[in-house]
C-alpha cells in the first residue's frame, strides 16, 4: 500500500478521462432522448443574471442557457453559428458582415433582429455598462445594421479572430428595448433567445430553467428542465452526486476527483486546458529588469514536480508561454529542465554572485497560488535565491498588488484565442500589462498575426512570439491545470470544454435509467 504508484494511477485516470471525452462516445449512443430534468451543482452563487455583466463560471453557465450570442465556441476553440447563420469579411479584415438567422424570437415573443444586435454591442462598448466583454470582443469601432438581418462590424485594425472573439461569454444578445429602458431589469428577469427560459432565480440556492419551445433549433434542447443548485462545499457536493441527488458537478477540485472517479455509476471528466498559474516579474524594476535574472529563476524549476505539487497531478507542465496544446496556435518547444549551475552562472553574470532576496506575493484565492509560491521558494533555494512568501486576502491583493507589484503569483483562465491571452497580458498595450515587458519584437509578431488570414503564416508568427517568451521569460508559467468535472453515467452528450466558461448543456440528454425528478 505504501508504494502506491501515483504515476500509474494518474496514467489510468488520464486514460479514463480521455475516454469520457471521446467524441465517439456521444455518437455511439442512440439518438438523444427527449425530456427529463437535469440537476447540476455549481460551487458558487449565481449573483448576476444580466449576461453582459456575468463574471464567474456558474453565471456564464446560466447566461448561456438563457441567451445566445452571434457565434458559439466549439470544443476545438473554433466558432460555430449561433444567432448569426454565416459571416464573411473584406480581404483587409477591416469589415465583417454577419447574416442573422431569420424568425428568431426573444422569450417575450418579440423578434430578434439586427437592431438588437447593434444595440447590444453598443451597450457592451459603452464604458458606463462596465461589461467585461468590452476589452475582449475585438477592436470593434462601429456596428451598424444593413437591414433587418445583416450586421456590419467596422474594425479599427485588421482582425482575423472576430468570429471567435464575439463568442465571448459576455457578448450575449439582449433586446434593444430593454437596453433603452434600463439594463437593471435583467438583474431579475431573463429575456433572451437561448435554448431555455428562466423559471426561478435564487442567487444563493438555485436557478431553474425550462425548455424554450420556440428555440431556433427544432431538435435541441433535449431536456425539459435544468436545475442549477449551489453547493459551496466540495465534499458535500461530491456526496450529493454519489448518492444520486445530483446528475453533474460543473467543477471538481483535484482533491475530490479521485474519490468521485471510484464511485460506482459516476464518471470523472477531465480535459487539458490553458488555465494556468504564473509568477509575474516586473520587467522594469531591479532585479527582474535583467533578463538573466529571470532566466536564472526559470532554470531552477522542475516543472514535472511542479505539476505534482500544485495540481495534484491533474495538469501539464508549462514552458513560460501562456499557450499549451489546448490552443490552436500552440508551438511545441523543448521543455525547460532545471540547471542550477547555469542559473548560478547567470545570476553571477547579472551581478548577483551571492544570490538575491525577493518577496513573492500570493493571494489566498484560489489556494493554488500559495502552493505555487511555496514550491517555487524551495526550488530556487539551491541557486542562492532566497524568496520570502507573503500571502494575503484576495481583496487586498486586487487592491494593492495586482498590476502594481513586481513579483507575484497570477492565475488565469484559458482564453478562446492565442491573440486574446497575448493581448490581455503580454503585449505593450495589454489590458493588464502586469510584467511591463514591453518587447517591440513580440508586439510586432502578435500584431501581424491578428491581421493575417493565411493559417500557416499566422502559425509561424505565433511560433516566433512563443519562442521569444520562452527565451526572455517575462513571467514564469510552470503549470497548466486540467479542468475536472463529474457526472452520473445516465447523463449523455456532455463534453467538458477546455475554455472552462463554456458548457453547451443544450447538447445534453438523459438516458432512460436517469432518476425521475419533478
Amino acid at each position, binding site marked *: 500500500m505504501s508504494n502506491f504508484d501515483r504515476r500509474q494511477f494518474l496514467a489510468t485516470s488520464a486514460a479514463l478521462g480521455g475516454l469520457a471525452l471521446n467524441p465517439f462516445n456521444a455518437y455511439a449512443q442512440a439518438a438523444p432522448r427527449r425530456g427529463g430534468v437535469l440537476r447540476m451543482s455549481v460551487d458558487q452563487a449565481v449573483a448576476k443574471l444580466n449576461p453582459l455583466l456575468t463574471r464567474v463560471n456558474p453565471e456564464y453557465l446560466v447566461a448561456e442557457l438563457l441567451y445566445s450570442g452571434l457565434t458559439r465556441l466549439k470544443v476545438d476553440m473554433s466558432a460555430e453559428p449561433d444567432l448569426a447563420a454565416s459571416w464573411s469579411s473584406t480581404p483587409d479584415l477591416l469589415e465583417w458582415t454577419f447574416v442573422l438567422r431569420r424568425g428568431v424570437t426573444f422569450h417575450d415573443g418579440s423578434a430578434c433582429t439586427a437592431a438588437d444586435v447593434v444595440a447590444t454591442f453598443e451597450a457592451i462598448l459603452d464604458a458606463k455598462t*462596465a461589461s467585461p466583454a468590452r476589452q475582449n470582443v475585438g477592436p470593434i469601432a462601429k456596428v451598424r445594421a444593413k437591414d433587418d438581418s445583416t450586421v456590419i462590424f467596422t474594425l479599427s485594425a485588421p482582425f482575423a479572430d472576430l468570429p471567435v472573439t464575439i463568442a465571448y461569454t459576455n457578448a450575449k444578445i439582449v433586446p434593444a428595448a430593454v437596453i433603452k429602458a434600463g439594463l437593471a431589469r435583467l438583474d431579475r428577469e431573463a429575456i433572451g433567445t437561448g435554448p431555455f427560459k428562466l423559471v426561478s432565480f435564487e442567487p*444563493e440556492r438555485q436557478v431553474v430553467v425550462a425548455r424554450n419551445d420556440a428555440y431556433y433549433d427544432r431538435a435541441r434542447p433535449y431536456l425539459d428542465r435544468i436545475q442549477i443548485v*449551489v453547493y459551496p*462545499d466540495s465534499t*458535500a457536493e461530491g456526496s*450529493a452526486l454519489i448518492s444520486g441527488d445530483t446528475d453533474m458537478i460543473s467543477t471538481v477540485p483535484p482533491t475530490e476527483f479521485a474519490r468521485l472517479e471510484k464511485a460506482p455509476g459516476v464518471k470523472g471528466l477531465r480535459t487539458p486546458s490553458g488555465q494556468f498559474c504564473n509568477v509575474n516579474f516586473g520587467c522594469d524594476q531591479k532585479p527582474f529588469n535583467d533578463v538573466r535574472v529571470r532566466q536564472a529563476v526559470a532554470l531552477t524549476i522542475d516543472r514535472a514536480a511542479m505539476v505534482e505539487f500544485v495540481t495534484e497531478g491533474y495538469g501539464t507542465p508549462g514552458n513560460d508561454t501562456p499557450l499549451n496544446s489546448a490552443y490552436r496556435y500552440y508551438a511545441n518547444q523543448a521543455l525547460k529542465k532545471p540547471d542550477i549551475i547555469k542559473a548560478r552562472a547567470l545570476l553571477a553574470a547579472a551581478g548577483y554572485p551571492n544570490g538575491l532576496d525577493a518577496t513573492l506575493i500570493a493571494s489566498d484565492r484560489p489556494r493554488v497560488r500559495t502552493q505555487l509560491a511555496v514550491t517555487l521558494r524551495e526550488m530556487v533555494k539551491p541557486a542562492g535565491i532566497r524568496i520570502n512568501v507573503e500571502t494575503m486576502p484576495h481583496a487586498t491583493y486586487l487592491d494593492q498588488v495586482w498590476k502594481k507589484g513586481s513579483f507575484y503569483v497570477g492565475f488565469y483562465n484559458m482564453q478562446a484565442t492565442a491573440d486574446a491571452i497575448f493581448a490581455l497580458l503580454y503585449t505593450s498595450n495589454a489590458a493588464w500589462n502586469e510584467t511591463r515587458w514591453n518587447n517591440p519584437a513580440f508586439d510586432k509578431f502578435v500584431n501581424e498575426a491578428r491581421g493575417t488570414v493565411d493559417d500557416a503564416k499566422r502559425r509561424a508568427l505565433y511560433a516566433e512570439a512563443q519562442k521569444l517568451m520562452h527565451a526572455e521569460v517575462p513571467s514564469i508559467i510552470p503549470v497548466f491545470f486540467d479542468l475536472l468535472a463529474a457526472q452520473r453515467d445516465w447523463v449523455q452528450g456532455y463534453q467538458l470544454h477546455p475554455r472552462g466558461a463554456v458548457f453547451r448543456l443544450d447538447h445534453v440528454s438523459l438516458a432512460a435509467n436517469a432518476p425521475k425528478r419533478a
Partner: protein
Amino acid sequence: MSPAYVLKRIALIGYTLFVVSLIVFAITQILPADAAVMLLGENATADALAAVRVQLGLDAPVWLQYGRWLIGVLQGDFGVSMRTGQPVGPVLVEALGRSLLLALFAILLMLCLAVPLGIVAAIRRGKATDLGVSVTSYIGVSVPEFVSATLLILVLADWLQWLPATGYVPLTEDFARGLKHLVLPVLTVSIILIAHVSRMVRSELVDVLHTDYIRAARLKGLSARAVLFKHALRNALLPTITIVALDVGYLLGGVIVVEEIFALPGIGRQLIVAIQSRDLPSIQAGALIMASTYAIANFLADMTYAWLDKRIQYG
C-alpha cells in the same frame, strides 16, 4: 421590573444598534478594496471601475453614503445589494428565516436531550453513566462542525444513503423533502449545543445538590423526585438560560460553516459573501440583524431570569 425599566432597555437596544451600524460602516471604509473592485475582479479597467462606482453610489463622500443609508433604514428601506442588484431587506429576512428554522429545530432537539442527559449525569455522579455523558460531551464540544458535518455526510448520505448530502429545500416547496434536507444540518449544530448545555446542567446541578437547602429538603422527608424537580432544578437551570441566550448568537453567526457545507442560504452565509464582495448595504443590514438578535436574546434572558428568580430585581 418596572415598565419604565423595560422601555429603557428597549431604547438601549436601539442605541446599541445605531452604534453598531456606525462602527461597521467605519470598518468597511478601512478594508482594502471596495465593491467595485470586487465586482469587476480581474476585469477592472480604470473607466470600468469609475462607471461601477457611479452606479453603486460609491463616488459620493463617505458621510453622505452613510447618511443616505441611515435615512433609507429609518424608512424601512435597506437598499439594494451591490453584488446582485436585489433589494437587501427581503433577501436577508428570508435568509434569517432559514437560519431561525435551523436554530429552532436545533434548540428543540437540544432541550429534549441535553437537560435530561445533564440531570442523569449529575445524579449518577462519578458512575459509569456520568463518565459516558461527560466523555461524549467533551468530544461533542471539541470536534469542530466541519469535521462532524463531513462525518455525518459520509455515514448517513454516502454509505447508508438515508439522507440527502447537502442542499436546502424550503418546507413550503416540498415539506417531506425539506425536512429530510434539514436533518443533517440540525444534527451537526445540535451536537455542539447538546454537549455544551448538558455539561452546564450537570455541573450546576451537582453544585446545587450540595447546598444546605437541598439537604434541608431531603431531611424534611421529601422524595428524591420532588427535591430534584421542585427545588434543585429550578436553580440549576438558571445559568443554562444565559448559555442558551448566548448560543442563539452562535446559532445565527457561528453556523456559517454548517450553512456552507449544507448549502443552506442562511444569514451567516449571506453575511460572509457580503463581506467578501464588500457589498455595503448587505453587510450593514446583516450586522444589524446579528446585533439585534444578540441584544434581544440577552434581553429576553434577563427578563426570564427575573421572572424565574424573584430575588433578582432590575430597575
